[in-house]
């Protein structure tokens, strides 16, 4: 965890849980006494349409309320967006872009205009979600990859919060499945 401001932009299709993930990451930061902001980009929305959401995390109070234009981290929940949205737009030179895809990061770099110094990380979060949670909800495993690459929030805090949120509707089995999805994404994410 750092005192520095970290700005995250989420790309997804409406219904994939990006807004929920942006919120849960912010809430995890609160548990570590960090400051936070989480906001979706509001506009006309329908299931499957490309959407964006944003998270800010900092060790000191966050005063700014403008859009995030130069994210430190970009998270892409659906690789079909790579052809239609400039997901790397404004990414800082030492930033990282994390993509839910089966394509290896070296291949992704060929099609994305990402700064050479920025990292590209890929993980099959949908595959992992189908294996563990039995549904294609890639948002939770993607946070596992985020934690691996940035350490912006703490793994134990995130798992704790996940359990707390899930226990309102589900039993331990579902909590274990979600935890497993996070662990696997943490282990399996590859970087280039």
């Amino acid at each position, binding site marked *: 965890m750092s005192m520095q401001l970290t700005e995250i932009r989420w790309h997804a299709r409406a219904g994939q849980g990006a807004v929920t993930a942006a919120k849960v990451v912010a809430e995890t*930061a609160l548990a570590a006494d960090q400051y*936070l902001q989480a*906001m*979706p980009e509001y506009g006309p929305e329908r299931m499957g349409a490309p959407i964006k959401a944003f998270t800010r995390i900092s060790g000191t109070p966050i005063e*700014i309320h*403008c859009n995030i234009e130069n994210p430190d981290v970009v998270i892409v929940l659906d690789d079909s967006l790579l052809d239609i949205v400039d997901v790397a737009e404004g990414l800082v030179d030492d930033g990282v872009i994390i993509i839910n895809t089966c394509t290896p990061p070296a291949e992704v770099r060929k099609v994305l205009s990402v700064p050479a110094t920025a990292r590209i990380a890929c993980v099959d979060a949908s595959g992992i979600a189908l294996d563990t949670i039995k549904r294609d909800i890639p948002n939770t495993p993607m946070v596992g990859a985020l934690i691996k690459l940035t350490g912006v929030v703490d793994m134990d805090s995130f798992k704790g919060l996940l359990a707390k949120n899930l226990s309102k509707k589900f039993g331990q089995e579902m909590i274990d499945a979600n935890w497993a999805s996070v662990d696997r994404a943490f282990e399996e994410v590859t970087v280039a």
Partner: protein
Amino acid sequence: MPTHKTLAATGNAVVAEAMRQCKPDVMAAYPITPQTTIVEEFAAFVAKGKTHCEYVTVESEHSAMSACIGAAAAGARVMTATSSQGLALMWEELHIASGMRLPIVMANANRALSAPINIHCDHSDIMGARDTGWVTYFAETAQEAYDNTIMAVRVAEHPDVMLPAMSTLDGFITTHSIDRVSVMDDETVAAFAGEYVPKSALLDTDAPVLHGAFAGLGGPFFEFKKQQRVAMENARQVIKDVGAEYSALSGRPFDVVETWGMEDAEIAIVVLGSTAGNVRHVARDLRAKGLKAGVVKVRVWRPFPYAELAAVLKGLKAVAVLDRAESFGAEGGPLFLETRGALYDLETRVPVVGYIYGLGGADVKLELIERVYQDLSDIAAGSAAPAGLVYLGAREEA
């Protein structure tokens, strides 16, 4: 001793929480983006039995404010929330609420007015209600929206004031962003808000009173208005007293005008609402580079703190005023006009320049704020002020 709980919550969620904690008897509301989640959350509190309140669902904002007026005249503590077109539709009732001296508390999610259609933040709606006789707070953050809402109850119901009050927060930016907010326990807030004891309730049949009477030619209409003026003037001190009491309880500062870096500032930006954070962020950076930049945030818009503003801006080399609302045909936006007016009696003239920014939610980029400080810096160094009003960040071809 109050207990404090830190949450990750939206501005709307904590406004609904503040309202629940202040225990209104009646809420009458109609949903409108981006206010909806306030009334939605409050309705859920009622449904779950977390507050004992008569929740009146109505067919429009005109009816919402009418129902609020009826309930407040009857003697109830009444709250509501609205935004944009909804506030505009309430316009005639806003005057009736203040004219009848009913201490209704309303949250407003600041949003643009059509046309063209736009659901995002600016202050056009609230500036349209400027002269309706409501005490009006502006929040920079979700935290301030929570705090202002609780203080508004005490100010509105104070015997020297008895005016409706609005707690406003910026649409989406503050209403819908999840932010870090500290809330107090129910008992502390309930004790602070106190119990409302109406002085002339319609339902008090032992002491019959007339509300909303005809006061035509030769009647006391003119004097009624003078009394409203006195009540609004009284609100100045009451707002400060309630603010000081609330500050002691919450541990958070409150002032009608909140400043940063003004001790030795040579230039300053005057601003309302969430943009104050962006401005302070930029001012911090510029300070580190040696520029004597200050920030002046107006937290209470009505009654307008002209004396406080003059005291803090006195002697500056240049001042910029950022308006998130238009007053077409006027020399500048509403805050600009008020600020210039507040400075008129100073011995030495302070150059004041006006900017219109962020209409319809246009992003308030940090470089725009930097540009304003650069203009001020140039003026302070002897350059001419920009000729006329600047539309900050508007595309050139427009």
